[in-house]
């Protein structure tokens, strides 16, 4: 049906979407994390370690990787509670770098040589399944009490607290859930590439994840989905330009920020799209 090459592009794009969603969730509560690559590394290494060394079944290992991501997200959330804005970005960035350096120097995980021999387990269906669950989760969250608390915190922390939002609790939940999603992404990634090394989850990864979500627009989680899909498939389509690829990619980001800094899917476009849906539904 689909060629192996197409399937691999789709799987990597799907994992990028999962990672962009892991950035979007804390960002929707106003907590910008530039260290999602670190959580991804934790999920990847934890799940790969379990399947390789202990023969744990894949779904269980995936869940364990997500759990590790979530717990560390909670731990990172604590110092982050005291920080805002740029300092938070810097500190989460430092966290991602710290995770990379730790794995680089952990012989049990292969150190700089990487961790090889991971059994192949991830299929396109796993990725699509996780994505379907996440889409369902995000559509449910946005109207829920927690989702509204996220939005309130993002818009005005003081006002949110005055309205009875427990900002400490909500921020920790946001960080931990972001960690869980990134951990899932890492587990899926490790069991598809079958080889992981710390460089795969470094600074570049964290910043690209951020880029995907911002490029798509932070008005809704669909922005992260759209941004990650477009930006991860685009390099494949740009193969023919060869050496110019990075230049064009950089230019695209610059132009996007100049022309449409709110991202592809902004509130106005989302409203238009959903109005069209409703009209179509009314016509039946």
């Amino acid at each position: 049906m689909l060629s192996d090459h197409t399937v691999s592009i789709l799987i990597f794009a799907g994992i990028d979407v999962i990672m962009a969603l892991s950035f979007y969730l804390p960002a929707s509560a106003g907590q910008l994390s530039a260290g999602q690559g670190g959580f991804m590394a934790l999920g990847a290494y934890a799940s790969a370690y379990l399947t390789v060394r202990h023969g744990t079944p894949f779904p269980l290992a995936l869940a364990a990787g997500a759990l590790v991501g979530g717990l560390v997200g909670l731990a990172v959330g604590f110092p982050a509670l005291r920080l805002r804005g740029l300092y938070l970005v810097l500190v989460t960035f430092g966290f991602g770098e710290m995770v990379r350096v730790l794995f680089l120097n952990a012989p049990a995980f292969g150190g700089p040589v990487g961790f090889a021999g991971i059994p192949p387990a991830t299929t396109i269906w796993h990725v699509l399944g996780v994505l379907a669950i996440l889409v369902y989760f995000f559509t449910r969250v946005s109207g829920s009490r927690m989702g509204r608390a996220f939005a309130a915190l993002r818009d005005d922390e003081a006002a949110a607290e005055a309205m009875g939002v427990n900002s400490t609790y909500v921020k920790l939940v946001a960080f931990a859930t972001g960690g869980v999603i990134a951990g899932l992404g890492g587990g899926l990634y490790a069991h598809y590439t079958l080889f992981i090394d710390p460089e795969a989850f470094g600074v570049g990864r964290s910043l690209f994840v951020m880029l995907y979500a911002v490029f798509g627009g932070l008005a809704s989680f669909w922005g992260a989905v759209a941004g990650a899909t477009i930006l991860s498939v685009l390099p494949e389509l740009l193969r023919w330009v060869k050496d110019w690829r990075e230049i064009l990619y950089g230019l695209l980001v610059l132009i996007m920020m100049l022309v449409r800094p709110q991202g592809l899917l902004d509130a106005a476009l989302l409203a238009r799209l959903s109005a069209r849906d409703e009209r179509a539904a009314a016509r039946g």
Partner: protein
Amino acid sequence: MEFLAFLVVDGVLAGAIYALVALAFVVVYKASRMINFAVGDWMMLGSRMVASGIHGVGLGLGGALAFGCVGMVAVAMAFDRVVLRRLFSRSLLTLIMVTIGLGIFMRGSAALVFAGLPGGIARPLPLDPLVIVGVPVAVEKLVAAAIAGACIGALSWFFHGSRTGLALRAIASDQQVAMAVGIDLHRHFAIAWGLVGVLSVLSGTLWSFVAGGGFGIELLGLKVFPIVIVGGLDSFPGSIIGAFIVGILESLTAGYVDPLVGGGFSHVASYLVLMAALFVRPYGLFGRPDIVRV
């Protein structure tokens, strides 16, 4: 004891170069509240320009440095004119994305423009280490540190002794008030980015002297983050002291701890200090906490 002295000296010398990198980062942050995530790419481009001045144009080291400075200031001015001016007072994330986009663009164009040109910059100095009071000191590091120290001195004079420096400090402390007293923000942002261009040429070149070849400069950019978090984002003395702390710490742990735990701990050490600093003083040793009015 001699070993300790050697490690401390080595750390101080490395710290001087780190301080230059950190200054390139803090100059922009103070002026325009922008985090330059591409600081490593700036350094890479700066050293590549100097290298191409030597190997491509056939200039001497001095001429190549001037060539690199002119080139990087031109890049900075173009970036300021074409991109930053249109993004005045946009959101934090937009500004971060712009530095990342520029970093990707720089990497791509450096690979294309400098294709085939060697990236190394030969150092014009002897290799034998100097022995000062029984402590061996690598000459290239000493010279690099001396140049870095001179730059830091010149920069602090510029900020505290010149009218432009005063204006930059005014902008850093309050943009609106600075505008109200007639400071041209755009012109001074351009000056700040021009400084980044010059600083990245210098630090990139010095790093190439010390590390040999143009290798791992992007990694040098990453060292900025623990430094400025420990020292405080908006403080010049803080970032310089932070740079020395990180330099000495790396050297000491590389000398004493790495042999015990099998290497690599020195890279983690600065991040452990970073974590500790965060719990005690989240805005760094010299940083000014954000005061939030409700």
